[in-house]
């Protein structure tokens, strides 16, 4: 498969899938078949792109200019390839889950639902593979607009309110800040291309003040990264059906946001300029603040999805934090967090959805003892929680490790403490859920009966179990993954301790 063809396929496939879903929308089995086959093909294409990238083959595609200077161009690089693989791979799992969930819940407008999902993946692929800020911005907006109908899917007043907040926050920040930052960058550097080492190196007359302002515009302009105070759209978006929360608000949409931040940090600013930019520390502080405060807020939420949403806000800030550490280990930590948090959080959301389909329960306080009825779901939940907390041998361990390493390299002593506090808070708000469900304290009574006869559909149980398994697998495959990412993040400095103890992945 040639490079151009692979990228074109990654972009066109989701659109073909959307068209196919629309065509056969009246026959549900065929429609779901189109989704699954298409998702499989897309995953294959993403893997192909990743293999080409790791082999060092150029994988580029240019579609010409919109106006002079604004080019639609795509280029695969390690970070984007990783994001593409994660998004498309989890889409397969999530599609199986969606089928169980949507049918089990007897949701309406399923054809529109699956179509929008495919278009959202189109947006995610475009974000992942974009070669310049303009292309990235275009697909970023496509992602926003295509997910709006998904958030508003239920159509009641509550869903409409949530969806409106979703749309207004994401569009508002992107037009108000991100677009300004993009155009400003273009005016300064004379180009919008992602350049290894930093596009802004080309900029003449880049003063620290301007660079600081730019970084702030980027950081808050990417509303999808959910940095406080622009995080509130995410909890509000939880009115969406759970498969949407699972894939889009744990993987595709929010990860597109933090991916953009990483991309800006690595390819627009570059390590050197970022280190010289004063507002970097400010954004880092905001990220740390977000980590702690979002975790604290999560503890107060009894609604399971709301708690997971705030947990996501906190975990996303890890990636921003990694980007702002501005050293190879920090970048690596942020990149690994994209993948590791994706598999962990999608598991948690899918479990929440399975519980909802089976029992209609959404509140944590009503889930005591439910583990007796749904042991597999809660075991998967437990594993994913442990991964999010960062306990080996689970995937979530590595990003935290790398972030601490990065903070130490950068000489920022307070960051590791923040990470440790965050882990403790994770324990406090995540672990009680599976533990109280699996081992209820004596005398807490019988769990609520199933609302749906037969409990959760088989697919909604199998999918989270599979992703929980992925948490294990990723722990052991982190070596190849970090080798794959290294060209993008830069070589990490091997410290004396590392070389003797040999602990680096």
């Amino acid at each position, binding site marked *: 498969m040639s490079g151009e063809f692979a990228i074109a396929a990654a972009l066109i496939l989701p659109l073909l899938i959307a068209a196919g879903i629309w065509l056969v929308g009246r026959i549900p089995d065929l429609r779901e078949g189109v989704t699954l086959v298409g998702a499989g093909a897309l995953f294959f294409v993403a893997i192909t792109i990743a293999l080409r990238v790791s082999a060092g083959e150029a994988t580029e595609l240019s579609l010409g200019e*919109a106006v002079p200077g604004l080019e639609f161009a795509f280029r695969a690089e390690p970070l984007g390839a990783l994001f593409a693989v994660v998004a498309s791979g989890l889409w397969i799992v999530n599609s199986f889950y969606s089928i169980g969930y949507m049918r089990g819940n007897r949701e309406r407008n399923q054809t529109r639902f699956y179509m929008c999902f495919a278009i959202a993946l189109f947006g995610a692929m475009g974000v992942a593979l974009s070669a310049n800020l303009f292309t990235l911005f275009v697909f970023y907006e496509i992602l926003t607009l295509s997910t709006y109908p998904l958030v508003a899917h239920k159509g009641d007043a509550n869903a409409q309110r949530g969806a409106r907040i979703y749309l207004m926050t994401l569009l508002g920040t992107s037009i108000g800040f991100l*677009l300004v930052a993009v155009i400003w960058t273009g*005016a300064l550097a004379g180009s919008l291309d992602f350049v290894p080492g930093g596009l802004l190196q080309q900029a003449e007359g880049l003063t620290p003040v301007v660079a600081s302002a730019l970084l702030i515009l980027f950081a808050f302009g990417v509303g999808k990264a959910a940095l406080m105070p622009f995080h509130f759209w995410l909890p509000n978006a939880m009115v969406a059906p759970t498969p949407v929360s699972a894939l889009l608000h744990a993987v595709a949409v929010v990860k597109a946001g933090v991916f953009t931040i990483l991309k800006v940090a690595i390819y627009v600013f570059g390590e050197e300029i970022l280190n010289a930019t004063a507002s970097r520390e400010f954004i880092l502080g905001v990220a740390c603040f977000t980590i702690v405060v979002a975790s604290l807020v999560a503890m107060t939420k009894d609604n399971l999805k709301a708690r997971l949403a705030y947990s996501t806000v906190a975990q996303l800030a890890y990636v921003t934090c990694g980007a702002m550490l501005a050293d190879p280990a920090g970048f690596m930590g942020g990149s690994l967090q994209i993948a590791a948090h994706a598999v962990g959080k999608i598991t948690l959301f899918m479990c929440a959805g399975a519980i909802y389909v089976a029992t209609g329960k959404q509140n944590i306080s009503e889930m005591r003892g439910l583990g007796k009825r749904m042991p597999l779901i809660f075991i998967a939940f437990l594993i994913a929680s442990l991964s999010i907390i960062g306990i080996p041998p689970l995937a979530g361990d590595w990003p935290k490790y790398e972030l601490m390493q990065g903070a130490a390299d950068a000489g920022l002593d307070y960051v590791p403490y923040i990470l440790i506090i965050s882990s403790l808070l994770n324990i406090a708000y995540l672990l009680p859920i599976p533990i109280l469900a699996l081992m209820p304290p004596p005398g807490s009574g019988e769990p609520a009966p199933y609302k749906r006869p037969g409990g959760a559909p088989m697919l909604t149980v199998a999918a989270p179990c599979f992703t929980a398994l992925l948490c294990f697998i990723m722990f052991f495959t982190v070596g190849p993954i970090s080798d794959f990412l290294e060209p993008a993040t830069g070589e990490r400095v091997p410290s004396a301790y590392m070389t003797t103890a040999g602990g680096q992945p």
Partner: protein
Amino acid sequence: MIELISSMVPDALAAHAPALLIAIPMLMAPIAAFMPSGRIAWILSILATGFSLVMAIVLVSQVQSIEGGAVISYAMGGWRPDAGIEFRIDALNSMILLLVSTIGFLAAIFSWPTVLAEIREAKTAMFYSAYLVCFTGLAGVASTGDAFNLFVFLEISSIATYVLVALGASRDRRALPAAGNYLLLGTIGASFFVVGVGFLYAATGTLNMAELAIRLEAVQDNKAVLAGYAFIVVGLGIKAAMFPLHQWLPNAYAYSPSFVTMFLAATATKVALYALVRFLFTVFGLEFAFEGSTLIWILMPMGIAAMIACSFQAVFQTDVRRTLAYSSVAQVGYMLLGISIGTAAGVSAGLFHLVNHALIKGALFMALAGVVLTYQGTSLQDMRGLGRSSPWTMTAFAIGAVSLIGVPLTAGFQSKYVLVTALFEHGWWWAVAVVMFSSLLAVVYMGRILEAVFFRAPTNPNKRHKEAPLLILIPLWILALANIWVGVQGGFVAGLADGAAASLFIGGAS
């Protein structure tokens, strides 16, 4: 495609393109008035505007045939330019002519169903006659090289417009005061303009704009010239709906016949703005002492005030036509802001937005005309649930709306991008903040409409499938797709705007 069409036109016609572009619709106007049925008048006006469109395409290709843009000078009636009237077509004129005739042609095609529904049958022939007169006037303004002749054409188009607006009275009686208001302010504007031209004539002894530019250099500090300058800027400012001289516009747009609204919104203010640019940059030129301060102290603050104030007003309207009318004033603000930068990049951005905004508002008002035709009302309530009952009309409306907001892949995004880049290059970063804030207001006021259209249940249960007729849908979709085309492949229009701006700066007066 431009080359293809212009190569098919015989040389004998092509040589007289500037005159024929005006003459044919002008001659057709009285003929149309005496036609026994409105249908024949309609077909005549399609033919006349279509012919003008072909001539405009010929002119564009003639101008573009030379690197940097040719200047076509056409002496009316064979009189030498300094004695007679000169038509002078450069990159800027040809761009405006192409815009006016394209919109005029599409408007003529789409007009029939709405005119049939909104104008009394006995008056339809006269209506088309007035339309052709209006079209002639606008095209004349955009092609003449004579300052007084420009005034004549401006008045021709305006007087026809007053008639057209007043004809909306059969649908809504409020069209009469709106037309009266427009007549008053429009006449004041025109009088100011002609007084200004008179001052210039007194000081220089010529009315030819190219000649004026040369002679004005010598008499820059003459008080009469300064007074003339002020009169001209204010007069054209009224015609172009420059904030705060825009009071005539919202009512005129809201109550005139749907077809007239669409045509005016896409062309009339644009042509007046063209005349303003022509006087600011060609006749007076940047060296003119007063001009730098006009740009910075008048055009730029007024542009910004329009972008903010009128966007806010648009947010609080309940009638969609009024929302769009206020939005038009706000968008004129964008163009003024671009022009006020005073660099080639800035003027180019302003002109680019001028074209794009014509495409945007043309599409939006055409879609609204379809709504008026099938559902009568255009209040926010009436728009509810239309997305389900007339998906084709409303999808085109939505394309126009996102383009107005400036979503990527649409024309509106491109021109805002170019504008903001020009602002950054000039160091006006605070103006960027204003542009973005105004864009957010556009998100709010268009978002409200889109939400009502696509996500609300219809308030009137009778609204089943009732799509606008094909005669409306086809031109509507041509404009909607043009928005996307410019958004994805905007090189052609951006090139036109660049060339036009360059002709103002490099060619200058020559």
